């Protein structure tokens, strides 16, 4: 018989995401890691605008609804003012990589000592499914109705890779929640990211590939399969940098 499993109290309440949405899994993983690391009562969440906003009533912890894209800056100040708290910004791909690209890269650049979790569902979910900077080539969205044309809109951005290659960050990884093994692996990434923060060595980021069945216009299971078959081909899973702890 396996270990008992109970939703951590941090997130043990009804969530208002759509059926089959990956946000619910991701935030639970964060809560599990915090609990296991004994940090569940030592946590501040700056939260982005997007379906992340639906966490407002979903988690019982210090949390601030940041202006769209600005969680990187807000988290910077929170961590600097409260260095002993664990600070985790929870954002979507639109929030962190489009409007917030300045704040997100600048926090990584400065190697701010907080953790960023970015839910990459390859579109702006909350506003009804527009193209984002992680929308796959040829993916149809409400602002790429004939499929994304990368020759004029750019290729999907790979932020953990960028942070790992260009900046002096502590930890960068990409996981996915499309099946149980990947959920477990993603949890291990999130845990390492928080541990990196606890060590004070540097900025940590985990991008989480996550389904948006509503805007992908797919059934939840189909959406999970879509991640396995397509999304991961553009967004390789794994760890891109892990600084040695001093």
């Amino acid at each position: 018989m396996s270990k008992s499993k109970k939703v951590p109290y941090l997130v043990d309440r009804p969530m208002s995401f759509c059926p089959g949405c990956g946000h619910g899994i991701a935030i639970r993983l964060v809560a599990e890691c915090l609990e296991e690391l004994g940090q569940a009562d030592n946590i501040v969440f700056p939260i982005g605008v997007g379906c992340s906003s639906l966490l407002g009533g979903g988690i019982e912890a210090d949390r601030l609804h940041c202006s769209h894209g600005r969680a990187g800056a807000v988290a910077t100040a929170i961590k600097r003012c409260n260095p002993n708290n664990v600070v985790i910004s929870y954002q979507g791909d639109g929030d962190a990589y489009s409007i917030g690209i300045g704040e997100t890269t600048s926090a990584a650049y400065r190697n701010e000592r907080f953790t960023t979790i970015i839910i990459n569902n390859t579109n702006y979910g909350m506003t009804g499914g527009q193209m984002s900077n992680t929308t796959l080539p040829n993916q149809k969205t409400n602002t790429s109705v004939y499929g994304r044309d990368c020759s004029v809109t750019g290729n999907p951005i790979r932020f953990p890779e960028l942070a790992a290659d260009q900046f002096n960050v502590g930890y960068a990884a990409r996981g996915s929640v499309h099946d149980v093994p990947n959920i477990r692996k993603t949890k291990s990434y999130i845990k390492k990211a928080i541990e990196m923060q606890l060590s004070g060595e540097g900025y940590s980021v985990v991008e989480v590939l996550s389904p948006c069945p509503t805007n992908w216009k797919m059934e939840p299971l189909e959406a999970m399969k879509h991640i396995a078959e397509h999304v991961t081909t553009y967004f390789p899973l794994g760890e891109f940098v892990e600084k040695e702890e001093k």
Partner: protein
Amino acid sequence: MKECVFAGFGGQGVLTVGLLISQMATYKDYHATWIPQYGSAMRGGTANCTVKFGEGYIYNPSQDEPDILLAMNNPSLVKFLPLVKPGGTIVVNSDLVDSEINTRKDINLVEIPCLTLAKEMDHPRGANVIMAGAIVKLSGDFTEREAIDGMNDMFRKKGKEKYKELNTKALSIGYNYI
């Protein structure tokens, strides 16, 4: 001027019923407005819209005091019951809605098993059109012909003509159920 509220789960086609009725009104040269509830409340899974139409200009397009309420599920009936104008009409999807919820005596409650009817006619997605037919009749503002023409005109313009016959039939079923 008539005010109708159409409410239900996201997938039940209530916004389309509203649009249908408003388009029929326009087709008859009435003034008409259609206004949805929008925003992240969508994620709760409920949807509703308000349609107003009539010969005069519509000063306030927003929800006010509906003459007619379509409630496709229980939460909708609970939510909008208190708003319906005294003497107004409430049409419920009796396949899903528990009419016991209704506590008002000053309204006219009409129960239509639209899911069953739709299944029977082999057009499971036509339940909302059936309801549109019923509401058309109840409103007293359109003939069956006017309603059908208005509806078909709309679906044609939207390039959705393929269900023309099924939809015509569904509308008639609803119209004649009353």
